[in-house]
């Protein structure tokens, strides 16, 4: 098991390297030189930057030097000094901007995954054990609609309903008085009050998918001989379903938790834009729009790394719950 984890962690490294290269390429994509546009922006705001300041920036990013030198400067800055570059738009180091947003993104995604499992697993099990019954049919239709309705449209619809029916705005994660306030207990409480709508919307998409996966996997397992063995023992039907086939049917769940985390973070981006949540999505969008490339690139790098780590964690969990894999690894 330990060797398995070590091997998986080592395998992760090349992936992270390629991800960083791609993020760097994206930072470089917009036409024009970063420094020129930075200076242009500063002068547009009435500031000027002295030659010395420019020199310092040039040194920091290795500008004007070959592209691979720039890449190494950027990467080593991140790894050695935690320097993610400078956000042009915010006039702040990127590192001051990203972490809170990233933490909220992770919080929201993890809660959403838990909520979606909490709903999807019992519903999926019920649907599979009552195949072709009326509730199964209704649940299937609902989950089909859930799969088909993209999260950001749902968010839009929920906003509209809240606006027109309750005359309430549901956007954001905080009330306005806490928006810029430092973290405090009151702010956390305030966030929890706002959290449930985004969480439900984010969870819905994956919930619907998970219901269908659980149902399909369980239907495959229900006819396996080991279920009959358990039944022939005289075990109670409900107990045996949860102990044996559900247990096996949920394995693919753990193996895809990494991917579902990826698609959650990905899908959440658009939902967050619609609901103007204080997560990575809206800030990344804004950064992209204003070509604030160090900020945008950092987000891409961080979100991708998050997915890689998520996949790793899910692989480890899978190895832990499924003895067949544990021993092979």
């Amino acid at each position, binding site marked *: 098991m330990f060797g398995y984890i070590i091997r998986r962690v080592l395998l992760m490294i090349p992936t992270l390297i390629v991800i960083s290269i791609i993020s760097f390429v994206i930072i470089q994509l917009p036409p024009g030189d970063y420094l020129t546009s930075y200076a242009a922006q500063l002068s547009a705001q009435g500031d000027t930057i002295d030659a010395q300041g420019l020199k310092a920036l040039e040194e920091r990013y290795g500008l004007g030097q070959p592209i691979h030198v720039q890449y190494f400067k950027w990467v080593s800055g991140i790894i050695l000094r935690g320097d993610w570059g400078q956000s042009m738009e915010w006039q702040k180091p990127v590192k001051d901007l990203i972490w809170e947003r990233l933490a909220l993104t992770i919080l929201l995604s993890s809660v959403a995954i838990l909520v979606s499992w909490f709903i999807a697993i019992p519903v999926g099990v019920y649907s599979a054990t009552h195949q072709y019954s009326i509730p199964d049919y209704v649940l299937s239709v609902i989950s089909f*609609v859930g799969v088909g309705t993209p999260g950001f*449209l749902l968010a839009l619809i929920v906003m509209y309903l809240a606006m027109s029916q309750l005359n309430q705005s549901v956007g954001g994660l905080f009330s306005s008085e806490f928006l810029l306030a430092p973290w405090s207990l009151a702010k956390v409480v305030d966030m929890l009050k706002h959290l449930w709508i985004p969480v439900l919307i984010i969870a819905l998409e994956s919930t619907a998918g998970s219901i269908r996966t659980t149902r399909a996997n369980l239907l495959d397992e229900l006819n396996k001989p080991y279920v009959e063995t358990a039944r022939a023992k005289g075990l109670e039907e409900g107990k045996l379903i949860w102990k044996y086939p559900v247990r096996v049917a949920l394995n693919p769940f753990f193996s895809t938790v990494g991917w579902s985390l990826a698609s959650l973070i*990905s899908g959440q981006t658009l939902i967050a*834009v619609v609901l103007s949540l204080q997560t990575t999505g809206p800030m990344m969008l804004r950064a*992209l729009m204003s070509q604030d490339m160090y900020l945008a690139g950092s987000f891409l790098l961080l979100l991708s790394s998050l997915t890689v780590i998520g996949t790793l964690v899910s692989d480890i969990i899978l190895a832990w719950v499924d003895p067949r894999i544990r021993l092979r690894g």
Partner: protein
Amino acid sequence: MANVDNNDMDMLEEGQDVEEVTAKEEKVYVASYWQLMWWRFRKHKMAIISVVILVLFYFVAVFSEFVAPYDPEQYFVQYKLAPPTRIHFIDTEGQLCWPFVYQITQEKDPETYRNIYIEDTETPYPIQLFVRGSEYQMWGLWTMDLHLFGLSVPQAEQGIFLMGADRLGRDVFSRTAYGARISLSIGLIGVLLSLTVGIVLGGISGYYGGIPDTIIQRVIEFIRTIPSIPLWMALSAALPNDWPIVKTYFAITVILSLIGWTYMARVVRGRFLAMREEDFVMSARLVGSSEMRIILRHMLPSFLSYIIASLTLSIPSMILAETGLSYIGLGLRAPAISWGVLLREAQNVRSLALAPWVLIPAAAVIIAVLAFNFVGDGLRDAADPYAR
């Protein structure tokens, strides 16, 4: 499982007609693969309904100039944010008659100063089919003025807005019809692109195995670890703003296919691997069929149905991705018309509360996506007609 009772016995006797069952069974034995597939597909009622809906949608997409009553860019100054025009079937005398609309006049609400629209029951306008209206370039090739439906009076006098008007007074129905063209085709083209790449790479991966397989699998795994929407956002943000619509359209399609092909490649590879082990492939090899013949004659047919099913199932994510990107302003941009671009109208929650009908393109997206999902699901079930 149930206890024995009389009902069961009754059911039993009714269900037994040995002769007829034999005839039916015989038909199954001689049916071709595609016939069997169709029979199974037919059982999936939702899939059949969805096929009808999709045919309708694509008809609108292909003939949007003809289906839309107005030019999508035409402003009706007097109908800003007008609600959907009510269509009446019963005239003032209470008689059932050909559908018509009433003259609509704009008034200001004395308190809120908002525009309100009032029906004037004095002047009815019948809705006409195949009416001559504003001129348009059919497929950009020739000039026509025939529309599927409309009013016979000039637009200045009275318009018909099946789905209301947006804040500039443009007909939402006409715009949705035009939007179908981009939104529905981007899925198809994107999927075909993904398929081409996916079949080549997945085929190599599945058929040859070994090192090419390992490399391709690594690449796929890698691409799948990058969260797609942030990547799409970053890539489409890099597209120059001044590109013409067509160029942006293809660029977006390529960007979407960049991730899409991995899914197709996985499906193709999986089928190849499964098929390689099948007994019928083994027997074909044993009787000395050439590799080409095995692939084309034996593997491809049992394969094609899976490909078609997966193809259908991956169209929705393409449609959704385009809609999402255009919605946040990173995909297609006005003056291009796609469902995502139209939904930008709904960005402001307050205007949404005033004119909820600008959300109608969202309904179009959801219906199209659902229909594709149902068809794909039906196809997937039907793809394996011998399975129970």
